[in-house]
């Protein structure tokens, strides 16, 4: 990928991530546990990890968090989005780059979701000065497996399609 | 993959199920109103709700027989015919009168006398907004009417009489106690192994707790406005009944007039005690015996010892707590006010 194309791809991914995140806010979640959500933006992060460098991935995550927090959740929640987003991106990047032989895209996605939820609930506990980690973590982990599987499957399909059509390659 | 999801689900489900079934035996709790007080029942075992309803029916039946605060009932009938010979009464009433007589005999009427009713009515403590000390003359006139021996019981024909006109019987002193024993009978009859009933402060514990440990009964701090306790007594299959100067009273010119009238003087008891708690098998007897409150610390303890089979906790007005020797291992001071002294040896 040349530089211009790369910037274009990053912008497209950021815009998509923001759109998906905002879209997700409309979808009601029937489980009244803080932190349970689909995490659809994870799809974009995974795509970025597969096709881009780590610093580009982190930039995409940061930009998405900033915009979404400003538009909807408020700045208090920015702390949650950024910490969860960055830590899960780092873990997924590590698993993909260093141990891809061991994990499928779905597995990586689940791992990301698990890290995302765990980090967030730990921060929540710290803010509330109340150890709610143990109380909510089981349901958050189960939710991470389910949502990680969903986003992982979508990412898997998308990544394969992108590869097949060589969308991100310079020749197109 | 499917296999693993299945495996995880089954594993999770089974863990959750076992975790649920580890929980304790559930109790049935009910709250009702009878005998002018709140009745709390806690029953472990099957059909608990039905049994608690049967118990309430029984308590209300006894209340109707023994009340002198509402028209009708056996005791009213007996009082109305005072000095006019025998009246036919319900065998149940006869049985209560007999028990009352037995308890009165223990102190020869010094502590407990069911014919103190005319004086109780005169003082009317806790029943009026404008309490006053009745004229000495009026009291003096009524004291001679108090004599439990004037209650004659003809058990064979289920009848009883009051010897002189103007005499009155009030079973209020043992009604809750008697009802407590009645309820325990109902529990036993229905095969209940573990239950506790609180009739406005009179506690009857059936058996032990479902886990086999003893029941913990709090003893109220006689001077706490909020119902704090001063100690805890551990009991199995016992009644715990307290009489004190704090349940109903009025204060006038800095003096406390409590609702328990000394049958001999006709005045509210002022014996240097704040409360007497009796722990024994029969709740009726515990109720009657707790009137050792009238006698003061020394004579009161003596009465309890003479009766045997009962343990007691005496709390004096100078906030000292005395406990009978047999209770020492089962009583624990739990005094948040830090004003009470537990006197272990006298």
């Amino acid at each position: 990928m040349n530089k211009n194309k790369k910037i274009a791809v990053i912008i497209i991914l950021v815009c998509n991530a923001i759109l998906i995140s905002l879209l997700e806010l409309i979808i009601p979640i029937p489980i009244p546990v803080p932190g349970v959500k689909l995490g659809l933006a994870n799809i974009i992060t995974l795509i970025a990890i597969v096709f881009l460098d780590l610093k580009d991935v982190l930039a995409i995550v940061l930009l998405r968090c900033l915009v979404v927090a400003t538009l909807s959740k408020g700045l208090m929640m920015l702390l949650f989005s950024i910490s969860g987003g960055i830590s899960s991106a780092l873990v997924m990047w590590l698993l993909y780059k260093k141990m891809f032989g061991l994990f499928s895209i779905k597995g990586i996605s689940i791992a990301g979701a698990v890290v995302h939820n765990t980090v967030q609930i730990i921060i929540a506990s710290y803010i509330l000065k109340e150890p709610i980690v143990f109380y909510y973590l089981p349901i958050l982990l189960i939710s991470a497996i389910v949502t990680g599987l969903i986003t992982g499957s979508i990412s898997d399909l998308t990544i394969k399609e992108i590869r097949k059509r060589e969308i991100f390659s310079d020749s197109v | 993959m499917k296999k693993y999801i299945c495996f995880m689900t089954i594993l999770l489900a089974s863990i959750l199920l076992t975790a649920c079934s580890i929980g304790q035996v559930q109790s049935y709790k009910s709250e009702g109103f009878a005998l002018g007080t709140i009745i709390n029942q806690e029953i472990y075992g099957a059909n608990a709700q039905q049994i608690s309803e049967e118990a309430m029916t029984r308590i209300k039946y006894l209340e109707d027989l023994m009340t002198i605060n509402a028209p009708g009932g056996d005791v009213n009938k007996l009082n109305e015919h005072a000095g006019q010979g025998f009246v036919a009464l319900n065998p149940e009433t006869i049985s209560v009168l007999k028990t009352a007589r037995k308890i009165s005999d223990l102190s020869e009427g010094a502590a407990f006398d069911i014919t103190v009713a005319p004086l109780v009515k005169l003082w009317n403590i806790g029943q009026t907004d404008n309490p006053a000390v009745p004229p000495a003359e009026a009291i003096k006139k009524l004291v001679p009417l108090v004599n439990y021996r004037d209650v004659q019981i003809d058990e064979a024909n289920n009848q009883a009489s009051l010897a002189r006109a103007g005499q009155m019987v009030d079973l209020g002193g043992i009604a809750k106690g008697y009802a407590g024993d009645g309820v325990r009978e109902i529990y036993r009859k229905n095969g209940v192994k573990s239950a506790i009933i609180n009739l406005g402060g009179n506690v009857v514990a059936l058996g032990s707790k479902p886990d086999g440990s003893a029941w913990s009964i709090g003893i109220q701090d006689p001077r706490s406005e909020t119902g704090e306790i001063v100690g805890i007594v551990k009991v199995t299959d016992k009644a715990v009944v307290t009489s004190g100067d704090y349940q109903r009273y009025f204060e006038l010119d800095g003096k406390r007039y409590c609702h328990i009238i000394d049958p001999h003087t006709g005045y509210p008891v002022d014996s240097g005690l704040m409360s007497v708690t009796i722990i024994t098998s029969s709740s009726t007897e515990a109720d009657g015996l707790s009137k050792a409150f009238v006698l003061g610390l020394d004579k009161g303890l003596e009465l309890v010892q003479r009766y045997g089979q009962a343990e007691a906790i005496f709390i004096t007005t100078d906030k000292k707590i005395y406990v009978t020797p047999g209770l020492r291992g089962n009583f624990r001071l739990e005094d948040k006010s830090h004003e009470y002294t537990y006197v272990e040896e006298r």
Partner: protein
Amino acid sequence: MNIRMLKKGDLILFLGVGLIIVLLLLWNNLSTASGNHLIAEVRKDGELVKKIDLDKVSEPEHIYFEEGIHQTILVEKGRIRFLESDCRDKICVQAGWLTKAGDKAVCMPAKTIIKINGESQQTDSIAF
């Protein structure tokens, strides 16, 4: 889903997370005070705002938070809940009634938490 698409690491991850879930559930079950004497605690910004003995509540009672995100908490005999909240996701209100020891409801945006502590009752009954 096809089993062929799963790799060794995925299985290890599954089992690992599953094991953690099971252990956490067990831990929660064992560590929750089993007492049936319910004491509710309302905390905001980590500070204890109110402690309520739920067994002694006779009349329904409201607790209002007027600063920042407006919230109303309703207390009744034996239970407590977030009644209204101006936060975005309303997770706290959706949590519904808290009725037993160990129950919790939190509102992250408002930094409010309600929890019920079960204290094992010191006495089974009181003689008075």
